[in-house]
């Protein structure tokens, strides 16, 4: 299912652009055909600051269970984070065509990386 040798694999791209506090983007272990993508953040991340930055980039905070935070876009894409472990998941909305999901995930990943960098004063 995974295709890590693909030249446009976001994991490869991620190695070049991401700050230390954000791991590369990888296909999530339990996805319905590329809908879910995993990113590992530093659990020490200031998630309130990250939330503020995501909200300036088209995301809105959404209700979630205790121990998890969630942001959604108008198109229905989601980023969820478990602050305790730093696990983040990018969820592409299921209406996106399968061949476009990887690229949508990449775009969301870029937004997430930018938000983390600004939240951490790294720009």
């Amino acid at each position, binding site marked *: 299912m995974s295709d890590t040798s693909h030249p446009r694999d976001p994991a490869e791209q991620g190695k070049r652009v991401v700050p230390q506090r954000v791991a590369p983007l990888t296909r999530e272990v339990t996805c319905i055909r590329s809908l879910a993508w995993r990113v590992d953040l530093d659990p020490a991340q200031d998630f309130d600051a990250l939330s503020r930055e995501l909200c300036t980039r088209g995301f809105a905070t959404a209700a979630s269970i205790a121990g*998890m935070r969630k942001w959604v876009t108008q198109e229905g894409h989601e980023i969820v984070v*478990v602050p305790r*472990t730093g696990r983040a998941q990018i969820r592409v909305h299921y209406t996106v065509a399968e061949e476009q999901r990887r690229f949508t995930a990449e775009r969301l990943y870029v937004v997430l990386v930018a938000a983390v960098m600004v939240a951490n004063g790294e720009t």
Partner: protein
Amino acid sequence: MAFTDHRSLHADRALTLLAGIPYVYHCHHYNLFHDQTIDDALGELDGARVRTNAARHAFRDLLSAVFKKENAVTTSERLTLASELFRWMGQGKMQLELLSSSGRARSLTPHYGYAWREKYGSRIRRHDPVDAVAAGFAAAAMELIYDLAPDSVVAKEHRCIAMRDPQCEFELTLGRGGPALGTIDEAASLKASAEPQAGIDEDRIKAISSGLWDFMRAVQGDERGLIAAFNVFVTTHLPTYYNETIYETVHHTESVSPALVPAVEELFREAGRACVFFTFGNVMLSPEWEALVGPPSGISTDVISFGTAIARGLGFGHWLVHEYEPRKRFVLRCTSNYEVPFYLSRYGRSNKPRSYFIQGAAAAMMTLAEAVRWRERPQLTGDFYLEVFRSRANYRVEQTQCAMRGDAISEYVVEAT
């Protein structure tokens, strides 16, 4: 519509109710597998008929109860309520155009058709419609909106997105009608359950299932009538649908082809295995689970406890771990489950254990505990499913007690072969 307000819970029995009618959660992997199992056993034509009838009966019970709770008496009130309920359950958004003598229904996003296309559409060309649940729902809605007799509406899906049609389309016509069947409601479910018992790791299982119930309370269909959660498409579904399809199929096989009964029973165990592998597995690997419980530990006793908690959280009944010896023996008990009330109400006492779904599920829990390396974040693909259950699984299951047979509880013993 605040359908959430009509939910209730008997936590000690893990019995979840909507307007007094039991409901459970099942994901698209199990739903598609279950329906395919019915068709494998009966053939596509009879399979679709049995599935449509079961859905009609299940939704008659639920819609009747919801109409009563909402005091919906006019045609338009009932029509709106029915389609909103279907969407809320994650079964899809349907447009119903129903008259007292005929009707049509359409959907761009029925759960079964959408999920089938998502899972198999790029690899398999399907020639038969897949949305018997939606067809049965539409038939039940028409019967109840116009106060028609049970089984008096024939619903047929003639276009389906799983067949690469642009939308699903259903025709509804008047038929002959049939006898009213008993409703499997809260009273019937409580009557068929035993006093809850505590099992191994009970406190932790209880806490996790309680957390899952809290989480699931917020789960409902989106604007398209679908629920994407735990990386699967989830439905709020009706046990009567699963039970009637399973037991009508088994009883039919017993009467016409008794030699095939073991094979059919094994198909339903297989469906239970698929449920645990895909649904329970996806839940345990989800961020929601990580927030609620923590990342996968890979410890086999954890997996057994977690599976038990998930079953309760999904409304499958009060499952408990009676014994567990890693790699050797697992004894699962149920003081209540969603199969028993239906069987006893519809058919009376069985002459043998018949809890096929949980037989398969128990064996699968043992397999997931022993044969899957959870800390390596396995891909829960179809190929991995085959690898785990055909190559790595060496467990047999025997149901030693069955409440359908008159035993006080149900018990499933899984042992290494």
